[in-house]
């Protein structure tokens, strides 16, 4: 029987890794994937707590969270495609047209 804090630790490590990825990387695709990693880590936390308190609400929320993440990934990739067609780059440091 694995104690629940172990799952929470794994979730925290994955979340931090995702956060570092979003902040440090310039490639928009990898930023999006790090964002998905963060969402996954939070889902793991939800399921661990649902197991602890024996409340099915955690599972329902994870189900809805996965759905929302799928919708967000689709729209984010569509935006990325539009930007790539206009500027031929996925490097977010080069997207400064509105800057003075």
């Amino acid at each position, binding site marked *: 029987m694995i104690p*629940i804090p172990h799952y929470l630790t794994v979730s925290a490590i994955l*979340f931090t890794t995702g956060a570092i990825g979003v902040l440090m990387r310039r490639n928009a695709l990898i930023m999006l994937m790090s964002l998905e*990693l963060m969402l996954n880590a939070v889902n793991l936390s939800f399921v661990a707590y649902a197991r602890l308190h024996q409340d099915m*609400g955690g599972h329902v929320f994870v189900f809805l969270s996965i759905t929302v993440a799928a919708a967000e990934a689709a729209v984010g990739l569509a935006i990325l495609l539009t930007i790539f067609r206009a500027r031929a780059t996925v490097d977010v440091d080069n997207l400064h047209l509105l800057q003075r």
Partner: protein
Amino acid sequence: METFLFWIFAIVAVGGGIMVVFHRNPMSSAIYLVVTMLCLAGFYALLAGPFVAVIQVLVYAGAVMVLILFVIMMLNLRDETLQREGSMVTWLLAGLIGLVLVVAVLPPFPRTPAGAPPPEFGTIEEVGNKLFTVYMLPFELTSVLLLIAIIGAVILAKRRML
């Protein structure tokens, strides 16, 4: 058995997560992310959540990651355009801040151990029960959100101005 599985899933998931962030080529990052997601599905199965485990594989690993891989293949980035991002010092600093962040993000650990759940915990009937009674409003709002996302993605990805 459960301990053995947990440690395998944990090491592969954390390793995969770190490799997602550190690879230059987005294709390799995507493959490692798929591996991490499958390990997380294993975690959900260990935590008595067969429904969310299968949904994780079906939606996340089977649809969202396929979509991301599609876009990566369509963009077809050459290796020369991907340069080194950030120097070694910056990454070391990021690693240190990451360690601090892990300790800061960790919640106060629950004192009492988890009891054994009833046999129908996490089954598809239980999730359906809760989803269509208590959480009806988020369910309907999510369906509207999906509709908006479909329309938005189709319009944004078309070639001409609509």
